[in-house]
Structure formats: C-alpha cells, structure tokens
C-alpha cells in the first residue's frame, strides 16, 4: 500500500500506525532513486484486485512464487469485491495513493487513464506474446495503458440438463429474444415453484449495449460524451422482459435482492446471459448439484449480427505514481507469462490472454467449452467500442438502481428512463 522506499527502515524505529502514516506522508516528499529491488536493496510493492476468497488464495500462492523467484521484492496484497474495490480506489485515486499494480476493468480504464494515473506500458512490460486482438482494448487514445489478463465475451450460460428435460432445443446462434423468452417460460413452468428458466436481463447495461449493437447502434457516442440512444429506446429495452417479469417466469426482485450468489450456482436459475468466463467458475458447484452447464450465443435481434465483441475480462495496470515501476513490471510479466504462475492461477480470471498462458494453463472440459464457444462465435465478433467514458462505472450502477424501481413498480418505464437520462447526463457532464 505504501510504496515509500524508506518506510521499512524507518518503521523499525517507530511503532504505531499513526506514526507510520505521518512518516510515509512526510517521506513521500523525498525524491531519491528508489531501491533496486535486489536482495541487498529490497523493495516493497503493492498489488490489489477484486474477487472472492478462491481467487485470493491462488493469487497469493502465485505471489509467493514470485517473491521466491525475485529475492528483494516483497508484494503487499489486498483484495475486495467489485463495488467495494472501486469505491476504495476512487478515493485513493484522488489522494494519488494507488497500488503499484492493480486489476483494471475495461469500463474504468478511461477514468483512471485519462487523468494520468496509469503508467504507459509500451516498452515497460512484455507485449509480444498476446493473442491477436487482445491489445486493442488495452489502449486509450492510442496509448497502451493496460495489459489484458484474459478475454471474454457475452454468452448465454444455461443448464443443458434442464433445457433438455423440458423439451427446449439447444439455443443456436441467431436465436431471438422472443424465442429466449418463450424458452424461459417453458422451463420455469417445468421446474415448478421457486426455480426459474432464466433471470431478468433488463437491469444490466452491458446487455442493453449488446442489444443496441445488434441494431447497429451503441451505448455511447463515438467520443464518449453522450448516450447514443433516446429515452424511447430505453423504455423499449426495459419492456423486453416485462411480460416475463409480470408472469413470474423470471425471479422477482424481492427474491434476487437477497441473493449473494448467482442463481445458477444456487440451483435456482436455468439460464443467464453473462460473461462466458464465468461458466467454468460456476461449473463445479452446478455439477455438485447434479446439473450440466453449457454455453450458447446470447439471443439476438438479427441472426447475422449478434453484437458480440471480445473484450478483456480484466486487465493489469501500473500506477503512474509508482516509485517501483521496474519491480511492478516484473510482477505483471510474471503473472501473465510465467508458466508456473499460469498453472497456479488457472482460468480463474478467464482464459489467458497470452500464448504462453494458453499453452500452460490446464484446460478442463468447462474451459474447453468456453474456447469452443468463442470459436463458434468468432465470425460474429466485431470491433469493440472505444473505451467507455469515465462516468461509466457510476452510470452502470445507476442503470441497475433505476431499473429496480421499475421492477418494484415504483416507477413506470417512462419515468425511470427519464430519470436515468437526467442522472446519466449529469454524470457525463461532470466528467467534462
């Protein structure tokens, strides 16, 4: 967390968190060359990510390996769940107290990158081994600011066993939203009380983006300064699941608001639109429940245009204020390119974005399923949209929050859409 090079030595003189904090602040004014990160001249860097305990455990294991291979560099680690992670980083960004290396999401890249908080990585980390197309979404206005850990795209994750048992055909690419709705209703009816054929998709801005792309549109304008659709479109989008919601074919918000895990792993949902890399993560639990998971293309308005694009599931970045850029770069290269590290990390963050990664990761059947899925939709993958505006994180939260009002019947689709536009436009304006 604290990358002041002298802190370790001085800390031995002082005890108490308060003293250490004051000192770190004072010492940050110094401007000597940092230590080299060798056995004689040790250095401490910090690395933070979002994720659960499973991810934390394997990540710490990989970090221990890194430390043993790089004597003199110690890594302070920290992790949190997704919303908490970003709330914390936002505050620390303001005080320029970012971790040396941290996990980045494509939707936040502009927020951090455009304010000079990230170190340009060209020539700093290895970039020659990435799979094709992966580095495109790591650039902001032409400058490489991040490296992808793994990639993903949207898909329909579904319970093949339940779909089959209730006579629903395997969804094929180009399968329509209406068809998906009908299938959900069929499966819900077949499963009986307390289980549903699918979840309500309308509250996720990513899915609306997909739906807009299927019509040749986009969520944001090219320059990222405004929304690229009208309120009527949003009302229309929120209505796509309204009939299912009213009929009880998707779980009610009163139920889902209490879920701390996804419906698929709770054995309560038969399908969900989601990021394909989640499928292998869900598989062990679903199999323990006696089910089988499969991946299909998400529903589309246009059989020839699925609206899909390959995006980084997560990226690694180095703080622009890091005093240990070299050691940080070593860590990034290690996590993405060291065969042993890749074997430890597996596909927890998605299928590796590097060729070395792909060769060294253990491909279990579920992961193979993701690879097969991505190959099956390869012909439909189109150019990713430009990195979304800085306000995207907040807009995403707002989108879900306001849709909840519609689900609870507190607002009509029109009222909610108007409110969303007011809020989103305020947020976009605040970024300019």
């Amino acid at each position, binding site marked *: 967390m604290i990358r002041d090079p002298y802190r370790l030595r001085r800390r031995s003189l002082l005890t108490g968190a308060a003293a250490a904090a004051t000192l770190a602040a004072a010492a940050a004014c110094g401007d000597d060359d940092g230590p080299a990160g060798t056995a004689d001249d040790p250095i401490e860097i910090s690395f933070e990510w979002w994720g659960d305990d499973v991810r934390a455990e394997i990540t710490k294991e990989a970090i221990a390996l890194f430390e043993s291979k790089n004597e003199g560099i110690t890594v302070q680690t920290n992790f949190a769940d997704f919303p908490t992670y970003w709330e914390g980083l936002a505050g620390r960004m303001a005080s320029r107290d970012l971790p040396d290396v941290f996990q980045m999401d494509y939707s936040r890249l502009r927020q951090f990158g455009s304010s000079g908080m990230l170190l340009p990585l060209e020539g700093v980390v290895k970039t020659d081994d990435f799979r094709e197309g992966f580095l495109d979404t790591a650039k902001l206005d032409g400058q490489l600011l991040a490296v992808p850990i793994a990639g993903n795209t949207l898909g329909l994750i579904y319970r093949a066993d339940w779909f089959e048992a209730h006579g629903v055909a395997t969804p094929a690419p180009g399968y329509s939203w209406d068809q998906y709705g009908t299938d959900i209703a069929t499966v819900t009816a077949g499963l009986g009380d307390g289980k549903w054929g699918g979840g309500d998709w309308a509250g996720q801005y990513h899915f609306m983006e997909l739906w807009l792309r299927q019509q040749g549109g986009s969520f944001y304008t090219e320059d990222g300064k405004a929304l690229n659709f009208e309120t009527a479109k949003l009302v229309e989008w929120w209505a796509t699941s309204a009939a299912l919601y009213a009929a009880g074919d998707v779980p009610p918000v009163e139920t889902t*608001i209490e879920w701390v895990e996804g419906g698929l792993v709770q054995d309560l949902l038969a399908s969900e639109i989601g990021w394909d890399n989640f499928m292998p993560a869900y598989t062990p639990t679903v199999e323990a429940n006696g089910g089988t998971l499969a991946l299909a293309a998400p529903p589309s308005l246009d059989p020839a245009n699925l609206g899909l694009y390959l995006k980084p599931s997560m990226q690694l970045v180095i703080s622009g204020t890091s005093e240990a850029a070299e050691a940080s770069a070593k860590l990034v290269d290690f996590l993405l390119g060291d065969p042993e590290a890749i074997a430890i990390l597996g596909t927890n963050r998605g299928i590796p974005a590097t060729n070395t990664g792909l060769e060294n990761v253990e491909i279990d059947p579920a992961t193979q399923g993701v690879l097969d899925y991505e190959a099956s939709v390869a012909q439909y993958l189109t150019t990713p949209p430009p990195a979304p505006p800085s306000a995207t994180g*907040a807009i995403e939260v707002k989108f879900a929050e306001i849709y*909840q009002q519609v*689900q609870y019947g507190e607002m009509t689709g029109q009222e909610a859409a108007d409110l969303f536009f007011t809020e989103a436009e305020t947020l976009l304006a605040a970024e300019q």
Partner: protein
Amino acid sequence: MSASPSATAAPAASEAGAPTASRKRGAAKRRTPPSRRGERLVGYTFMTPWIIGSLVFTVGPMLWSLYLSFTDYHLVLGGDFIGLENYTAMFADPMFARAVKVTLLYVLLAVPLKLVASLAVAMLLTQSRRGIGFYRAAFYMPSLIAMSVGIAIVWKALFAAGGPQDQFMSWFGWDGGGFIGNPDVSILMLVLLSVWTFGAPMVIFMAGLLQVPGELHEAAEMDGAGKWHRFVHITIPMLSPVIFFNVLMETVHAFQLFGPAFIIGGTAGGPAWSTLFYTVRIYALAFVDLRMGYASAWAWMLVLAVGVVTLIMFRAAKNLVYYAGEDNK
C-alpha cells in the same frame, strides 16, 4: 467553537508554556496561587494534541468541504468555482427529495419510539430490585455494539426472507416476506435497530428520574393521585429538561445515521431507494459518482437543516420545558 483562540494559543503554549508554567508553580509554591494566565497556558499545553487533531482532522476538512461545496470539484478531475450552483441544483435533483423523505421518515419514527422505550426501561430500572445493576448493564449493552458493522450484518440476516422475523410474523398471518426485499417496510429494520440501542438516553433518563423529589410523589399520593396522574403531572414536568436534551441529541443523531443504513441498503439505498438516507446519498455522490463538490454541498445542507431543526426545538422548549427552581411566570 473556540477554534481561533486555541489556534493562536497553541503554538505559544507548546513552545514556552510548559517551562514557564512549571517555573511559576515552583516559585509560587505555598505562597500565592498560580496566575490565571499561567493556568490557562498549562491547560492549553495539555490540550495541544487534541487541538492539533481537531484542526487537522475536523476543522480543516470541514472548511475545505465548505469551499468544495461552491465548486464542481470532481474527485479525480478537480473543479472550478461555480458559486451557489450546487445548492440550486439540489432542489431540482429528484434524488434530493427522495433522500430527504427517507431521512425525515426515519427521524419521525425512530426518535419517538426510542425515547418512549428508553423512558419506559429507565422507569423500570430505577426501582430498587435485587440484581438491578445487572439489568442496567444488560439493557445498556446493545448500544455499545449496535453501530458496528457486525451487528448490521446480523441485523440483515434477521430480516432476510425465511429469517427469524419472517418466520415469527408468519405465525400472525404476515405474508410480506423478509424486510430486506420489501421497500414498504425495509426502513423499519433501521428504526428497530435504533430503538434497540436505547442505552444512552436510558442512562440519562435514569439520572433524571432519580432527581425527581420523592416528596412531590408522596404529597400527590396523599391527595389521591393515581400512578398515571403522578406520571403525567409530576414525572413528566420534572423530567422535561432531560426529555428535551434527549430529544435534541437523538434527533441530531438520527439525521446522521449512516453505517447500518449503508451496510443494509448499500449505496443504492435498496430496496427501491427505501433506505436511501441522506448520508448514504452523500456517500454515493462522492465515492461512486465522484462528484465531491456536489456531495459537499449536500453535506452542508444537512448541517444547515440540523441547525434549523435544533433552533426550532430550542424555541419550542421555552414553553414546554420546566426548570425547577426557575421562576415560571
């Protein structure tokens, strides 16, 4: 309150104060008492750490946030001075009205309920019973832990669908499920949490109750007044300064409720904004939306509102509170 005098006194005190004071004290031994001035210097010297602490961690940030409230400061991008724009924008902000509504509803529900509960328990606990010390401690206990994160999480579990509250209420024909997913009643979770933590006002009420002169009750009893009459005509008036103090403190606290609300309802004040407390909204504006300037304006509006409410209460108290020993007309 005394920021400016202490600010000027503090450096002087820390440099010269301590030695001067001790020399004086040495010289003045057993002859003349130390001068007021010396005493003051010693006092300020001892206070230095706290004065510095409050200047650096409270007064400074407050002034900074006051300045920010007149800017469009973005947590990352910075901002410019925009005058009163934030304050006028607030009244056009649909979320402002919602947050105010939720907060007022909470204040109106939680404060009276908590005070009635604490007064009732205080009256029970001022009786002389065996083991009364134990009961007093036991009833005070919740308020020590209630505002912790742990309790908020436990609280959330109690009110989940199928949880204790849902099961208990189902016996009486309730079919509304857990409070967490039900926007009509979700605020009650927080009201109940607040009522459960009546320890502080309870202790103050107990102190007040023990001050009520026993002879008033005796005299009234001789005149044939029943328990209820004595409560209404003796206890309540004699207790009114204490009641006023508690109402004031609890109201001010209630306006600022944040921790449990944030844990139970999240930044979105779920479900459906039914727990979108004013403070939760400030947090979301500042740390999700990163609009620090606007969030600061919200915060200062809260300071103003609490100030106005406090003033109104002091005005109202003039006619409602009876101070024994004062000439009341």
